[in-house]
Every structure is written in structure tokens, then in C-alpha cells.
């Protein structure tokens, strides 16, 4: 984003699933029914210079099961802050553009929410630090390909319980490690001159380590979540206002729900 430009986003997201993978085994659980989470997120980016942006995000999350007596939770989750830097870009004589971005970010919970009742907990409760690299190629005619990969270091968390079971061993502490996470996304899309943009994407998320959900038990913060998702994104800009939508579905996974996520939102650009 260009210097002295601010973009403000407000979005609504919902994720639902009724099948999940207990380790590698896909199952349903009649005692839980289907899981759903909703979130409303405020997000914004500001161009400090043409090559350096600062970005924040703050979601409010609600969770619940359809067929369980277990209470869901809701509340403001984690605040995130990123710096996005463009160390390199090159435009060919025909107008095609190559760009490289690097982002580094941190996030931390805004309050002491319940962390050891996944998936009902509104977040992992971990403070994180992440690094990400993005390669972007745009043709003069409007086609684009973007590939990005990131690594998130996730700090240990303090649970309400005083012991946890991990990889066959019992640990006598409330401090529970949360596995680091690796993610990667590839997008292919098209953006026309009138403000319509659309792409399809393939996303991979994988914890760096961790264990499996144990036989017929709920997931713990230590579980090794993995998922491969595919989705469609579309956005339409009218002047400074943008409207966007996103649908993604988990194709394969481990220790995660076979979820479908829908996001809808507005963006607004303010030029200073």
C-alpha cells in the first residue's frame, strides 16, 4: 500500500464443521453435533512509506456446539500487529510487475480467556511472533499469482488445569507448550481495471510438532493440527470502498474440523 494511505477493514467470518479428524481418523461426534464459530474483526493497514506498511487486527469471537450441553465462549481474542516491507519490486517494459514482501508480526491475547477447551476456546491463548515471505507477480493485463509462506512461533500458555498429558507422559504444570505453525498459500487471480478482483487459492497449515487428539477425547493445546484448504476470494471496489467475500473448505486434515469458512467484509481507503 502506498505511503500515507490507510485502509480500514471490518469483516464477519463464520466457520462450521460436523466432521473432524481425531488424529488421522475422520469422525463425527453425536454428543457435540456441529461446531460453529463466528467472528467480527477490525483490521487496518497504514502506509508509513510506499514500501513499509503497518497492519493491525482485533477479532471478537463466539463459539459453540449444536448438540452439547458444553457452554461456548465469546470475547475479544488476540490483538495482532505486523510490519510489511517491500524490499524489492521490478516492473518490466511491458508493464508486468514482480514484487517481494516480508512481514513480521506479533500477537497476544487481550484477556485471560479459557484456553484449554478447544475447539470451544476462542483462541489458543498463545503470544506469537511470525515471519512471512510473499512473492507476487502481476501481468499488465490483470492476472496475478501470489505465493506466501510463514512461520509462527507460538509461546507456551497457562491453563486452568495443573497437569497435562502429552505424547504418553504426564506433566505436572499449568504451562503447556503450543506447537509452532507453518502455513503457505498460493493464489491465482485476475483484477480488472474497473475494480473487480477474484482469485482461487490453496492453503496449507501445519504445526511443526505436537501430538494427536487422544482416543475419544477433546483436543488439547499441544495437538498437531494440519489442514489443506481450497477457496475462492472476490472483491469489488467502488471508489474508496471495497466489498469482499471469501469461501474456503478444508479438503484434508489432521486434528482439525472439516470446516467451511465464509468471510464477508468491507474495506475503506482513506488518503491522507
Amino acid at each position: 500500500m502506498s505511503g500515507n494511505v490507510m485502509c480500514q477493514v471490518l469483516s464477519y467470518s463464520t466457520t462450521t464443521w460436523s466432521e473432524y479428524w481425531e488424529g488421522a481418523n475422520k469422525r463425527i461426534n453425536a454428543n457435540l453435533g456441529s461446531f460453529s464459530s463466528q467472528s467480527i474483526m477490525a483490521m487496518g493497514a497504514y502506509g508509513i512509506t510506499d514500501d513499509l506498511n503497518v497492519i493491525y487486527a482485533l477479532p471478537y469471537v463466539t463459539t459453540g456446539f449444536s448438540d452439547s450441553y458444553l457452554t461456548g465462549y465469546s470475547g475479544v481474542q488476540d490483538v495482532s500487529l505486523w510490519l510489511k516491507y517491500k524490499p524489492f519490486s521490478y516492473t518490466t517494459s511491458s508493464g508486468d510487475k514482480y514484487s517481494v514482501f516480508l512481514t513480521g508480526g506479533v500477537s497476544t491475547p487481550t484477556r485471560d480467556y479459557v484456553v484449554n477447551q478447544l475447539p470451544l476456546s476462542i483462541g489458543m491463548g498463545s503470544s506469537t511472533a511470525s515471519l512471512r515471505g510473499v512473492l507476487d507477480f502481476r501481468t499488465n493485463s490483470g492476472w496475478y499469482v501470489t505465493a506466501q509462506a510463514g512461520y509462527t512461533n507460538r509461546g507456551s500458555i497457562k491453563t486452568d488445569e495443573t497437569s497435562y498429558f502429552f505424547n504418553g507422559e504426564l506433566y505436572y504444570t499449568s504451562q503447556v507448550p503450543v506447537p509452532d505453525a507453518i502455513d503457505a498459500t498460493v493464489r491465482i487471480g485476475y483484477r480488472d481495471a474497473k475494480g473487480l478482483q477474484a482469485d482461487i487459492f490453496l492453503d496449507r497449515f501445519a504445526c511443526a510438532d505436537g501430538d494427536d487428539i487422544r482416543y475419544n477425547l477433546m483436543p488439547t493445546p499441544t495437538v498437531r493440527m494440519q489442514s489443506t484448504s481450497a477457496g475462492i476470494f472476490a472483491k469489488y471496489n467502488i471508489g474508496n470502498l471495497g466489498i469482499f467475500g471469501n469461501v474456503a473448505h478444508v479438503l484434508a486434515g489432521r486434528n482439525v474440523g472439516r470446516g467451511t469458512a465464509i468471510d464477508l467484509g468491507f474495506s475503506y481507503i482513506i488518503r491522507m
Partner: protein
Amino acid sequence: MKSYLKASTPHVLLVAFLLIAGCSTTIDGPETAPQTPATFDESGGTWKTYIIGAADEVPVPAPDTAQAFQAELAALKGVNPDESQMSTARFWAAGGVMRWNEIARELIAAYNTPPKSDAEGKYPFPDPTNPLKEPRFPFANPPYASRTFALLSVAQYDALVATWHYKKKYARQAPWQADASLRPLLPQSSLSSYPSEDAVVAAASREILKFLFPGEVPMLTAKAQEHKDSRRWARMNVQSDLDAGEALGIAIAQKVIDYAKKDGMGGANNQAAFPTLIQDAQSRGFTTIWTSRETPPRPPMLPFFGNVKTWNFGQAEKVAMRTTIGPPPKPGEAAFEKEIQELLDISSNRSREMVRIASYWADGAGSYSPPGHWNRKATDLTYAARYSELRTARTLALMNTAVMDAGVCCWDIKYYYMTARPTQINASLTTSTGIPNFPAYTSGHSTFSAAAATVLSAIFPTEQASLLAWAKEASESRIYGGIHFRADCEKGLQHGTLIGAYAVERGKKDGSGL
């Protein structure tokens, strides 16, 4: 130079971000150093046992004190442990009784997994002849855990009383006393080292846990071997100390296993007879009968565990206490409606602190269960008080027999009145913890906790205030979680206190003078 800086930027950034976020991913558990007891309880061979009739019921041959012993001492002198062997020796020297209690907790946490329903909506029962096939045998639920700890602690205690008896009787010198040039690598004991208390505890514990967790024989065998080996590595015991201890531990554990085979546990899961319990409760005027909250409905947990043999009193006392506790309020009665209202208020406005307390004490599926939680508290206390192995075992036997008695008496009451969980009465109620699959009145957590706290308070009087406060919090946690009525919890606490008192009485008369 410039390109080097540029190339290293991501690394510098990563370090900076890690510092900012303060992230640490490796967690170390608390270390427990080798223990030197405050007293060795030299006269412990006279203390009253549970299963064996007398300390010398299992014979132990007199040790060699001449040539063979000298050869063993010479062999021990040549032992030079490496750092990993010494680390293992220090681990076990924190207290064998405590370490085997920890192994039991870990096994319970590993096996505390309720069977999953199959395609026909049935819940397969774990198969003891094929223990590692899912659902694994045993399903180490709270009653199973209470019996595990009781049998383990009783076997450890009886075996150690016998050990103390023979130590005094034969009084063979410890290796470092018999040969001043032999330097032991762990704190010395004033007791004779024949038979080895470590080998006795290792063998007795291994045999009990093999009986209860038949799929874990290789792990348990390896642990016991490591425990015994650690005593040689640290030059604390010669082989004949260990061999005598092994034989004594096995023999006494076998007597405890013989007892366990006849304690009524075999009939505790008699699902075919469950309808008779329903009819009996109805005939007593309790018509709002408990039903499983699970889908598909899960058979109730161990409906006849209330018939399993108790340790510190008999059937008459069990029935008398049930009468003292009395019946629960019934739906429609003012007291009942008041308790439902309390749960509705919590359900619609459950505070973060209530969820914290409910989770702290939940000790539900996948955990070491409430008996495991109290064993952890107990060994924290015995370790801090620098108890001898024998006194630690006595403390755990007193507490765990009371905790198992609490389980039996509580299960007896649960299926006597067969009352519904709050969510069965009002389906709009929410919970912040799992709903146990058995009747509500009285609360197992409350009964277990009050029994444990009563026994530990008698042994550690300076800790009484915090122990009783913990029991009360464990009890109330079930109301905050939305799975128990207040009467379930208050009556459970009262019941557990009465049950614990029997173990306290036994402790006063067990000849320990403690």
C-alpha cells in the same frame, strides 16, 4: 558487507520478535532431589498391616555375611556409573513409593478414556484379554483409579512393614558400613540394607500394576528393573539385598492380588442387573430416574461398584452412613427448586473464576482423575515433610483406602437414589465441564476429596486449613461446572468426612504412634 546485513535481516527480525513475544516452547517439570528422611522409623516392622497377618508371614532367608557377601561388596566397589545412570539413581532416590505412585497416575491418565460408540450405537466394553485394542483395557475411570491407588499403596505398605521387620531381624550391615572403602553415591540410611526397600517397592508395585494394567507389562518390567539397577549403580545395595527384596515384594503383592480378585470388582459392571437398581430406587419413592446424557445413551459407569469390599469398615457402617446422609431433595420440593435456580443463575452468568475452578478440579476423561489429584497433593506433603519410604507408604495407604471407601460408598448412594443430573431436569442448563455418566447424588469429587482431606489433615495438622479448603473448592467446582446440585456436593463432603474418619481411627491404632 552490505549484502551480508541484508541477508541476515530475517534472522535479526526473528530474534527481535521472539524477544518481544517472550516465547518459550520448552517446559521443564519440577525436579525432585534425592530424599534423606527426617527419621527412618526403625521400629516400623511392628506396624499393623492390611493384608498380611504378620510382618513375617512371608519368610525371607537370613542373608550371607561371610564369603558371598564379601564377593558382592567387591563387585559393588567396581561399579562406576555414568552420568545417565546417576541421574536415574537420583530420580528413584527421591522416593520409590512416590515414583511408583506417579507411574500409577500416568497410567490412569493414559487409560482414562471412555469407549467410543460403534456403528450400531453400542459401546464396546474393553477386553482384558486384548488390553491394547481400542477401547483399551482398563477404562481407568475414577472408581477404577481409587482401587488402583488403594491396592498399590496397601501392597507397598505391607511389603515395607515386612521389609522393616527383616531389616531389624537380620541387621546385615549396609555395604558402606561393611566396607569403609566403599563410597555410596546417594544419601546413606541408618537401616540395614537387607532386604532392599527399593527392590521390595519396585517388585510389589510392578506386580500390582501389571494386574491392573495388563497391557503395560513390558513398560512396568523395565521400570522395576531400572529402579533396582539404580541401587547398584549408586553402590547402595548388593545383589542379594535386591534379590531378597524382589522375592518379598512379589510374594506380598500376590497376596494383595488374591484379595483384589475377591473384592467384588468383578461384578461392578453388571449392566444386566441395572434395571433392578432402577426398580429399587423407584420403590423408595425416587421416580425421576437418571438417564445417560450421551448420544447414544451410554451404559452407566460401574453400577455395582457400591458393592465392592471396603477397607476401613464393613457393610453395617456403610449402610449406617448412608442413613446419616439421607435422601436428596426431590423435584417439586422447595429445596430442589432453589438448587435448580442456583444452577440456572450460574449457567446464564458463569464467571471466568467459576470456569477456572471447575477446570482446575475437573480431573475428567484423559486425566489422572480426582484420586490422582489427591495422591499428587499427598506425595507433595510426604516429600516436603521428608518422610521415610515406610511412612510415605503408610500415609498413602491410609488415604487411598479411605478414597476407595469413598468411591464405594458414594457409588452405593448414587445407585440407591438414582437421581438425575441437572441437565436432565432442565435441558437449557449449560456446563463448562463434561457430564459424568452416572447418577448425581452424591458428588464423587466431594466424597473423594473430603475423605482424602480428612486423612491428610490428621497426618499433617498444620495443613488442615488448606486441605479442607481444597476439598470444599473441589466440591463446589462441580456446581460451578453445572453438573451437580448443591445438595450432591454438601452431602458428599459430609459423607467423605465420615468415611475418612475411619481411616484416621485405624491410623491411630496401627502401632506407629503417629
